[in-house]
């Protein structure tokens, strides 16, 4: 009998599930676009103002839409018992969680990266700013997924975990927001923004190394 790598099958299963629930994939993305649409309406359409607040607006909207979509990360699997099955499965739970978070990132942040050129146009970003923005998004959003997954795993057993999730995660995301927007601001002034990217990259490396263990531990706590 051909042996199947359990990790591949987890990834395949989650990808299929995500693909079949298209509306759930699209909703956070639409939310992201709509929040960004609100800002020119709220603060006025002056191109210079928009260019100034643009990077921050995009990052804040990304964090908000991440919080919105994050809640679903383990919810269904928790309710139908798949997570318990995974704990019994012949694969380390940390790897399994890493795979799940990876698929979640593909489903929720990859579309956001793809749609960001449009938003750069909306907010009148220069090409240099846009290039910096997409780099910070590419490095920073996996960090959002990984750290967020810890709090999601902790709150998955609670009835109303949604608001609590935001309370827990927003403070933790603030440093990332600061570095990401300061990178784009440096790009706008034509300065070198490699240091900020390096710091975000370092945080990402650290998160990749540590968070899968924290997530799997949190899942075990939730199945107490």
């Amino acid at each position, binding site marked *: 009998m051909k042996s199947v790598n359990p990790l591949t099958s987890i990834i395949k299963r989650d990808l299929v599930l995500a693909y079949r629930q298209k509306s759930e994939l699209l909703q956070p993305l639409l939310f992201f676009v709509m929040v960004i649409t609100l800002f020119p309406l709220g603060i006025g359409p002056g191109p210079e103002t928009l260019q100034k607040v643009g990077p921050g607006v995009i990052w804040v909207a990304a964090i908000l839409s991440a919080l919105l979509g994050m809640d679903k990360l383990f919810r269904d699997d928790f309710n139908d018992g798949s997570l318990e099955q995974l704990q019994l499965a012949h694969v380390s739970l940390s790897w399994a969680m890493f795979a799940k978070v990876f698929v979640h990132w593909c489903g929720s942040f990859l579309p956001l990266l793809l749609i960001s050129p449009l938003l750069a146009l909306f907010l009148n970003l220069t090409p240099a700013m846009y290039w910096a923005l997409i780099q910070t998004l590419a490095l920073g959003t996996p960090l959002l997924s990984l*750290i967020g997954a*810890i*709090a999601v795993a*902790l*709150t998955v*057993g*609670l009835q109303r*975990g949604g608001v*609590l999730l935001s*309370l*827990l995660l*927003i*403070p*933790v995301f*603030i*440093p990332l927001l600061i570095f990401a927007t300061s990178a784009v601001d440096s790009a706008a002034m034509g300065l070198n923004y490699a240091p900020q990217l390096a710091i975000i990259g370092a945080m990402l490396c650290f998160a990749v190394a540590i968070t899968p263990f*924290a997530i799997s*531990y*949190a899942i075990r*706590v*939730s199945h*107490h």
Partner: protein
Amino acid sequence: MFNWLHPYAKTERAYALCNTLLPYFFVTAVVGLLVGFIWGLAFAPSDYQQGDSFRIIYIHVPSAILSMSTYVAMAIAGFVGLVWQWKTAYMSMIAIAPVGAILTFISLFTGAAWGKPMWGTWWIWDARLTAQLILFFLYLGVLALYGAFSDKTQAGKSAAIMALVGVINIPIIHYSVEWWNTLHQGATITKFGKPSIAPSMLWPLLISIAGMVGLIGTLVMMNLKNQILRRELHRPWVIALLQKTENR
């Protein structure tokens, strides 16, 4: 290695330890705060630039310094709980959390009151102030997460994980002054070597800090005793204790 610590995993021993330590903390708090505040507020010389309004450092600096150490203490208690599975560790963690949150709030409040005459504004988005505000949010997050669970062991584990995640924030708070060089003045007494504060101002400050440590210890011990009694309400030793107090 931790053999001497193991007995305190039992709630009864931990309760007794609280009772032993409480008077020391209490005396330190009363003496330190009284001496430090009276000396600092009434007798220390006023600053040549800031006049008398600098005197708020005798409240601001102890609470600001200790709010961070208190968070670390809370996270260590959570870590101990996660590693050795002690419920007394979780209880101490959650006994520390509200005290730390209030300290952080005091440091923010006194900082704002100090900022108004000195910087001309109540609030500025300076790195240190922001980091302190994040610290406050982190405390609230830990407390909210703990409160959300009805099973308190699970609550303790979850809050401990979140406290450890938040510890990442502590170095950011610490180094933010160097990373973003902004309005907030640099460290006065924590740097090595000669402090950039006159001894006549430094001594009352150090005594206030010691007093504040005593106050935190007192509050945490009282809170922890409360936690233990509430959680162990049906244990024989608690019932015996309660009967003894009633008969008195």
